[in-house]
């Protein structure tokens, strides 16, 4: 069952079209990731879904509400966590939760149990007396998530919740999200981290207000239609130019001392031998060479670069920033 249903959803700001004809259905229980570069329209999309912005054109239905006419009524059924979610830094963890419970009219008798559960869930039980301002960045994000969950929303909309937190906290946050997802929650989360796309059940790649790709992570990798040859040459500087000039090489991406060579799917083994031969011919040693599965980051960068080139070639329908 689709709980979010968008048809040609469009939103203009003064001079830009931030969201440009978005058509998308999100089913109950999905963990849907919105990824893409800055300015692609991720935040605007989430705000539209949260009923915080007016629609310029198109249709949007969230749960059973039409966002054009019933945006106000949507709000209590969703939990929206903005990029700069404001906790009250002078209030304790408990007081912040109590504050949001109040705003969202959570029945008084339901509060103690729900608060205890969320604190447990977010690993904040032992810090409940601490002022929010004195929590680490990662704990603040977890508290913000707990506050977003206090009214038991049917849909969670999270705008870059892990930006700026350290790796352990980031991993913990995602473990919490996937646990929520396992419990059946519907989550739409935007992220600038490509590796986080791997943790979503489906991913939408946004570019210039449009969905450039939308599929489960594995499917996106298949759509890339590429294999990656990972080469560890002794001298990457010399090797890179030689490999880039070979036939059938789509792109060479540098990863420290390694080169990731993107080639058409199905040609990996053949191209690998050609790379070996070329390096040998030029007396360049190679410590290791192997076929590796493409990563999300490689897929997205390659896709966005292709789109950028298309745009640069002057499609008159694409608004220029």
């Amino acid at each position, binding site marked *: 069952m689709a709980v979010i249903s968008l048809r040609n959803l469009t939103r203009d700001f003064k001079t830009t079209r931030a969201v440009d004809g978005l058509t998308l259905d999100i089913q109950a229980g999905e963990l849907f990731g919105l990824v893409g*570069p*800055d300015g692609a329209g991720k935040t605007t999309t989430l705000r539209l879904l949260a009923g915080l912005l007016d629609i310029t054109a198109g249709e949007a239905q969230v749960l059973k509400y039409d966002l054009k006419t019933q945006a106000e009524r949507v709000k209590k059924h969703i939990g929206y966590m903005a990029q700069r979610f404001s906790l009250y830094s002078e209030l304790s963890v408990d007081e912040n939760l109590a504050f949001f419970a109040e705003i969202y009219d959570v029945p008084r008798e339901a509060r103690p149990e729900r608060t205890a559960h969320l604190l447990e869930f977010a690993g904040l039980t032992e810090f409940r007396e601490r002022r929010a301002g004195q929590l680490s960045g990662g704990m603040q994000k977890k508290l913000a998530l707990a506050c977003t969950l206090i009214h038991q929303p049917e849909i969670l909309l999270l705008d870059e919740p892990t930006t700026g937190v350290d*790796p*352990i906290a980031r991993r913990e946050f995602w473990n919490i999200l996937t646990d929520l997802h396992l419990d059946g929650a519907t989550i739409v989360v935007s992220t600038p981290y490509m590796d986080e796309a791997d*943790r979503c059940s489906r991913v939408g790649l946004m570019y210039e207000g449009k969905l450039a790709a939308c599929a489960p*992570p594995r499917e996106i990798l298949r759509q890339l239609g590429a294999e990656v040859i990972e080469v560890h040459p002794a001298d990457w500087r010399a090797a890179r130019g030689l490999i880039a000039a070979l036939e059938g090489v789509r792109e060479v991406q540098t990863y*420290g001392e*390694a080169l990731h060579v993107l080639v058409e799917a199905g040609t990996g083994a053949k191209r690998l031998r050609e790379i070996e031969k070329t390096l040998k011919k030029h007396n360049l040693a190679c410590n290791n060479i192997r076929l590796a599965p493409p990563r999300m980051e490689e897929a*997205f960068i390659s896709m966005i670069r292709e789109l950028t080139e298309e745009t640069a070639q002057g499609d008159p329908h694409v608004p220029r920033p």
Partner: protein
Amino acid sequence: MNPVIVSSLTKRFGDFTAVDDISFEVRRGEIFGFLGPNGAGKTTTIRMILGLLAPTAGSVRVLGMDARRETAKIRPRTGYMSQRFSLYNDLTVIQNLRFYGAAYGLGNAQLQERIRAALQLADLEGREHLKTGELSGGWRQRLALGAAILHEPEIIFLDEPTAGVDPLSRRTFWDLLYRLVEEGVTVFVTTHYMDEAEHCHRLAFIRRGQIIALGAPSEIKRHKMRGEVLEIAPENAARAVEVLRTARLEGALPLESVELYGALVHVILPEARKHRKDILRTLQNAHIRVHNMDVIEPSLEDVFIAAMQ
């Protein structure tokens, strides 16, 4: 001699030891990554390397000189770009570059040529007269890098240069760094983005003031990972997570963690190959079909998280 040599460096603030006896060397012409969570001691270390803060014990030598006592001689040969770029938003691109060029004492003729080179490197040609404040994050970041290399430094120190910049711009930025190292520049960069660690030639990972891993990314993966990552593609990933977590809690399988990745499950365990069959059987007993099961290479993030726990 290596351009940066850090020996037994320690910094205490009262009873708090921010940097605890760390040693490493940065080699000429490499990108050296200095990684760690916020509050691990990254900024304190970089401030001592830049000679801005006196060590409690130990020493830092940059280009063969003492970082604290010979700062004046080191400064003209090194560049620095901070997290907050320190550009003037009201000035145009070219005015910012002229300002920094003058600050580095570049003469007029030389300055013209270096500004042209910086604009070219940062791909800002044609944008010279835009107000800096109107540039996107990625452009501003490249302008800041251009400003930091105007005086052709031998080493450049970058403190979280990509914080808050989108993935494509981050990638473009790294490609710029590779161009600089190809020209022989040594790059020292701090970051908390784990995926960027893979772009470094060598790196140090700092936690609670101590270095817990040092070397090339591939070496670190080989030596520091406890356990292996097994990627399972089951018919029903949610159920599989539940079943495997139960098996973990009951001690039936030696799993260190069980996490959902989209439609896949990642399990970390020692000697994954040895336990494959048991895992498969556990899932089959719960009537979960398994399409595929592979030991995959851990990401550096997997390795660091394992090393920290």
